[in-house]
């Protein structure tokens, strides 16, 4: 077990390093330096600036310096706004984290409930309705759903305020983020519940005279949860990328919309820093999900 955990963490660190490497060299492949602005600078100034920011050094050395600063928690400065990126992340990430975590929890819990209900009432009306809706929502991209919710509930009906610094309402962004993973979890939970219900141990329990509810909760549900937990990793990745567009649509000042802004403004240092930050987050989430999965199901062997 301990060996497995160590190996998994080692792999995660390697992945994060790989991401940093990839990000750094890809960003450096873009033609044009940071000082190629509209105002022409004299050669001497550019040289002085390059020296000041170590841009005259070989690229490997630059990468080493960048990594050294990253380990110290220094992400550098935004090219366009000139602000410290660490500060920007510090104030925007909590908003996104709250949004994302709520969405993850709602998607997992509601998805499991709906999926189990559908499995228990197989081929009856509730099953049909749940499967119809979840099939429908696996075809709706989050930005489409977000824009429609914004249009209907904020603009036309006025039930929810449009997001601003003073008006923060998480309901609509959370719904638009959670809908797709919820629909997916529902379908997943239904099949794994059906699978669990057809197992021999359920028949044995029934034959022993165990009550229906104990069978469902203690025997079937616990076993059907395993595939749902495996999906948690990809789900978190989906929510992180989904939050970029959803935050942009609702003008939520989270890290996702900052990232999209950086892309549209071609703010390369900001893109680099947020990519590394979000990618590391995904890698960490994946490790936790993996370990959790192995801890929950003792049948899985540690490689």
């Amino acid at each position, binding site marked *: 077990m301990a060996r497995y955990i160590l190996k998994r963490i080692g*792999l995660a660190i390697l992945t994060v390093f790989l991401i940093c490497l990839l990000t750094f060299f890809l960003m450096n492949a873009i033609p044009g330096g940071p000082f190629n602005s509209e105002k022409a600078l004299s050669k001497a100034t550019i040289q002085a600036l390059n020296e000041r920011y170590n841009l005259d050094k070989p690229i490997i050395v630059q990468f080493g310096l960048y990594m050294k600063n990253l380990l110290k928690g220094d992400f550098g400065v935004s090219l366009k706004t000139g602000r410290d990126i660490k500060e920007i992340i510090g104030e925007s990430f909590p908003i996104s984290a709250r949004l994302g975590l709520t969405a993850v929890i709602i998607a997992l819990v509601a998805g499991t409930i709906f999926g189990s209900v559908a499995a228990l009432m197989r081929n009856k009306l509730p099953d049909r309705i749940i499967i119809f809706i979840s099939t429908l929502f696996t*075809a*709706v*991209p989050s930005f489409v759903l977000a824009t*429609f919710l914004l249009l209907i509930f904020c603009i036309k009906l006025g039930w929810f305020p449009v997001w601003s610094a003073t008006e923060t309402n998480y309901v609509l962004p959370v719904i638009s983020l959670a809908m797709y993973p919820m629909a997916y979890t529902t379908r997943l939970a239904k099949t794994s519940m059906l699978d669990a219900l057809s197992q021999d141990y359920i028949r044995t329990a029934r034959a022993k005279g165990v009550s229906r509810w104990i069978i469902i909760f203690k025997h079937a549900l616990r076993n059907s949860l395993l595939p749902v937990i495996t999906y948690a990793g990809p789900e978190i990745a989906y929510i992180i*990328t989904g939050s970029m567009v959803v935050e942009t649509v609702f003008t939520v000042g989270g890290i996702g919309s900052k990232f999209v802004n950086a892309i549209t403004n071609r703010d390369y240092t900001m*893109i680099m820093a947020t*990519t590394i930050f979000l*990618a590391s987050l995904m*890698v960490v989430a994946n490790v936790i999900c993996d370990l959790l999965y192995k801890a929950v199901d003792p049948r899985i062997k540690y490689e």
Partner: protein
Amino acid sequence: MSEYDVNKTPKKQVLSMQLDLSKFEKATEEEKKQQDVMSESTTFLKDGLRRLRKNRLAMASLIVLAIILVIIIVAPMVVPYSYDEILKVNGVRDKGAKNLAPFTYSVLEQEYIDAGNFRFPHIFGTDEQCRDYFIRVVYGTRVSLVVGFFASIIVLIIGLIYGSISGYAGGRTDLIMMRIVDMIYSLPDMLVIILLSVVLGSVLKFKGGSFLASIGANMISMFIVFGVLYWVGMARLIRAQILSIKENEYVLAAKSIGAKPGRIIRKHILPNCLSVIIISTALQIPSAIFTESYLSFVGLGVSAPMPSLGSLANAAREGLQSYPYKLVFPAVAICLVVLSLNLIGDGLRDAFDPKLSR
């Protein structure tokens, strides 16, 4: 000597195999009929297609998709506008044709019609740059479908070659090739896609007039991105299939008569994992369309005058309050295309590989 009668002839030996015919009776006509072949023998493909045809949901989706395909092929021939054409009446730029509602005409156009001329209606209205919106949505759907289809083909080809080599070779080759796959697999794909799109978008510049320039650097970079990242899932799947198939006797038989590895893979192994390949390719298309629309929405999709469903939906956010129909058309188009492709993929999976059905 009288006629030979088996029942009267005594057994020569106790252990003789000689049959006692009295214990048998002739088959009746009915019983003989049961041996007749009732229908033609079926092949794997025919059997799957028969099951697919029974799946009403999948067939309905197929019809919806066919209708969409016909519309996006025929519409540009019928509608006299083009996707980047600013509307003109009698050669004069029609400045009033901005943000028209569906099936309405601008003042200039109305005068033109009143003068007894024919003006093709703006089925979905027009956009803020006086362009016909219907033809833009049609082209957007075209772009999305083309990206989805070709991206899946690229993924299929790379995954197929890589997976079959790795699976067939086995041993150390397999180990190293799969470690590379693991590494790419562990990268957060969407973030790397965004990153690559940002970089390739500014690195790739094509000379005007060439074929590549007409598709646009962003579109090319999107194909590269799909090709670089998404093949790993396919490669893993095909490798797993090949690992189990190559243990079969017919592969051993082929090997023993001296067939080369390339021939064995092509003739004996790949046809046997065809169903898995078809199904996962079919399910890859909608997910590629999703990714493309997402990238276009963020602003990394196809380049400017060429529309895509994602970029149309993104553009519709401006003036959402006044012109909500501009969001509705591309949004419904994405959902319809993805939904029908999803259902067809599910139908194919149920029809061709009952084991896989979830």
